[in-house]
């Protein structure tokens, strides 16, 4: 396992929702994100949203317990936020705009790979939620109950239907979700 960078403390702060360190995180890192967004046709609100969403993406990855920061946080967080902002501009304008400002950060391979890992994870989540929302109401109900940490026996009891029926139905619903995900244009670009 890779050795964590000392900035790993900020990742822990996100997971633990530590107000003191989070404040420090904003104080130290939000300025450059603001500069990047404002320089590239965004507003302060856009910058605040991009910064927050970058941190949430990081939280989502870190809360799975499968993430160790091996590079400094500044360049890494900047890379995530820049990518988010480029995507957002392109969504708004329908164009393929890109920019390569680094605000003086040197973005090495390790930083880029770590950032990519977080971004891919976030995009997978978004895709899964999007496809999940397309399932029928019955499937959504059943999967929510089962993912909410309930044993299938309990789900069957709650719905007062047989265990065998619940299990069969759940596998059908999961099958549908998997197919929807596989059918998405994004599927191939995301590592599963």
């Amino acid at each position: 396992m890779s050795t964590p960078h000392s900035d790993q403390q900020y990742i822990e702060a996100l997971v633990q929702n530590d107000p003191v360190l989070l404040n420090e995180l904003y104080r130290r890192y939000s300025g450059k994100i603001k500069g990047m967004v404002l320089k590239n046709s965004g507003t302060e609100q856009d910058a605040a949203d991009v910064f927050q969403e970058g941190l949430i993406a990081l939280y989502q990855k870190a809360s799975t317990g499968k993430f160790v920061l091996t590079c400094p946080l500044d360049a890494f967080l900047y890379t995530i936020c820049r990518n988010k902002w480029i995507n957002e501009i392109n969504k708004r304008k329908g164009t393929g705009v890109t920019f390569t400002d680094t605000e003086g950060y040197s973005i090495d391979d390790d930083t880029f790979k770590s950032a990519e890992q977080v971004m891919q994870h976030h995009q997978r989540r978004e895709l899964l939620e999007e496809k999940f929302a397309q399932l029928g109401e019955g499937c959504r109900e059943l999967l929510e109950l089962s993912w909410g940490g309930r044993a299938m026996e309990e789900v069957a009891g709650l719905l007062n239907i047989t265990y065998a029926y619940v299990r069969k139905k759940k596998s059908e619903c999961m099958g549908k979700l998997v197919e929807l995900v596989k059918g998405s244009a994004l599927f191939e670009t995301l590592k599963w």
Partner: protein
Amino acid sequence: MTELLNEQMELYLAGEMDDAGKMAFEQQLQTDEALAQQFSLYKNIQEEMMAARQHYEGEKKLKANLQSLSSQYFSGTETTPAKVVNMKRKWYYAAASIAAAVLMFIFLKPALFPVNNQEIYARYAIPESLSVQRGAVADSICTVAAGFYNNHQYAQAKPQLQQCLTAQPNKTEVQLAYSICLLELKEYNTALNTFKAISEGNSLLKQRAVWWMALTYLKQDLKGQAIEMLQSIPADAPDYEKAQQLLKEIR
């Protein structure tokens, strides 16, 4: 074939395959690359969605905190949730409400010398508990509603359930409880309409609404229509057995 495969994957992941089945499945995974890929995708998707739900509360609290920091460090920011990257979390509210509450239903009782339709109705139409669990937005109203409803105080439950539904219109189990209230308060036509709306949706409770429509007809001595409803309940519906039992009694 795919259905069978999905069921096998589900069984395997739930740790419910017997030893022989497990060995055979694992062997198949080793030799069949396409199966292995499908299995890994199935497993990853499931794990990812479970993790998302496990950390939902944490994510919500973190967002609230970040939001207030944003207003300190970025000028002119709103206190409303971030809008640039819409997280599409609407369904979470549905999730909380689904995880919340489901109706328990009728136990079969031995068919003992039915006297008339009202007697049969009373034996089958036992409104079961509506349970409201924590996490939903409008929980306090819904908890009060469930209290009256579970106590069979339908006149008091009705307006509360209505309010609960205003806050959370998609809660099928509450819609069903509300419809049962109407039925018990003898507002048959309205009850039939609301049961019908549920039965035309895609909820897991759709067939149960048909079952209650049958009971609504039975209560009004409209045996023919009750029979028609009971016959329309398909064999794979959870209430099929019960429906068949009732059919036998009233035919």
